[in-house]
């Protein structure tokens, strides 16, 4: 099925089996291997990308559903010579060990900061009528869809806290 998706600012036309997940389209058809396949069932968050600015699990979406959408992968977040502040913060805070979950963590964190900036509530938000303040418990709760088996969580929170402070 013919599908055109704008990936990292570039329109990409593909002819796909309807079963192809957005994740497999990115990795196997567009050779964007930064987005990782972990569980392939929406449980680990390694495949997180931004679609029209919102973070989703690309493993639990069909590529054909995204015809005309704008997808941002870790390759579009920033490159070696143009690191996104979140990528730089992960380096500065040593927020990974093996690195496999890191692209998903970073895409998720970028999407999460936008959600918090738009004052979306979370389970640990006490005052639903007030402004969201990104405490550590808020960051933990909002990032619970991204698992790190090396358990770099304290550093991941530190990295996100650094960037949240910059944009706040």
């Amino acid at each position, binding site marked *: *099925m013919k599908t055109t998706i704008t990936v990292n600012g570039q329109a990409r036309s593909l002819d796909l*089996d*309807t*079963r192809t*997940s957005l994740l497999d389209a990115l990795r196997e058809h567009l050779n964007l291997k930064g987005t990782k396949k972990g569980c*392939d*069932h*929406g449980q680990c*968050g390694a495949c*997180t990308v931004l679609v029209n600015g*919102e*973070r*989703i*699990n690309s493993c*639990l*979406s*069909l590529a*054909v*559903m995204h*015809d005309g959408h704008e997808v941002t992968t870790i390759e579009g977040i920033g490159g070696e010579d143009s690191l996104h502040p979140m990528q730089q913060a992960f380096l500065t805070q040593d927020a990974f060990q093996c690195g496999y979950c890191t692209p998903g963590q970073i895409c*998720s964190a970028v*999407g*999460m900061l936008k*959600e918090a900036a*738009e*004052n*979306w*509530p*979370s*389970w640990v*938000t006490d005052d*639903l*009528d007030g402004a969201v303040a990104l405490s550590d418990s808020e960051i*933990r*709760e*909002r*990032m*619970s*869809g*991204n698992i790190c088996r090396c358990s770099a969580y304290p550093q991941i929170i530190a990295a996100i806290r650094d960037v949240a402070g910059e944009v706040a």
Partner: protein
Amino acid sequence: MRPFTYERPTDVAAAVKAVAATPGAKFLAGGTNLLDLMKLDIEQPTHLVDVNRLPLAGIEDTPQGGLRIGSMVTNSHLAADARVRSRYSVLTQAIVSGGSGQLRNKATAGGNLLQRTRCAYFYDPSKPCNKRHPGSGCSAMEGLNRNSAIFGASDACIATHPSDMAVALTALGAGVETMTADGATRSLAVADLHRLPGDTPHLETNLAAGELITAVILPPAPPGGQVYRKARDRASYAGGLASVAVVGNQVAFGAVAHKPWRAEKTEAALAGGASAVEAAHAELAGAQDNGKNGFKIALVARMTADALGQASPGRGA
């Protein structure tokens, strides 16, 4: 995953017609449950009708003072809506207690209501399950039933409905609007949407083939506090072992039955002047222990009494 054909209509009537006319067809909304089950070969649709481009993603005030929520509003946008969080905080709380940020950005109000049980045996095609294969038996009955139903179960099935959102909607007395295969619209209460398992646990809702949920209708919020409590094995991103939604004197339980469970005996006890603890026990007296799920009975009783007290601090314990 088995092969399927795919279409993406932009008109509600066309979408309904497409599913009704195609044996084996299903609607595809967020896909976070359906696609997962297709990967596991538990769902086997031959044709998917993608409803994501239908004009059903708005939230409007109703003349009655409630809200009309399009069925394609995502969980994230519904939970964050200013009207929902100020007037229906129980709904915001229930939604943000479910899934992860990524899933809530994809999942929809209609799809959430129609998600399927997380019973481990339903998810394991190597085991008998009356939902997957009617007549094959229920493996949970004498198996790992820690997360199984304590209300309304049958000899054929003790699975639970996993939605948090639906528990809040049930406590709020919400309804759904649908379009049927012939293009007609109808309304039914969320409490009447899901079925108890009986001897047909593979039939989970009272929707007809091809019928599409087009909106969720919230009545004006009744007076009184609103509380959503959820007990789970992890602090975040885990299904509930049990949950309790309190809206004034209206109470519903989650993860304890094949459908969101309106606690009518608790409500009647409250109306009769019972204390929160007495009212909680009024419903739990009818709960059933299958071996490993019995802990839910004391758990839900305590959560209910606590939630009732939190919703109405003046109420006696």
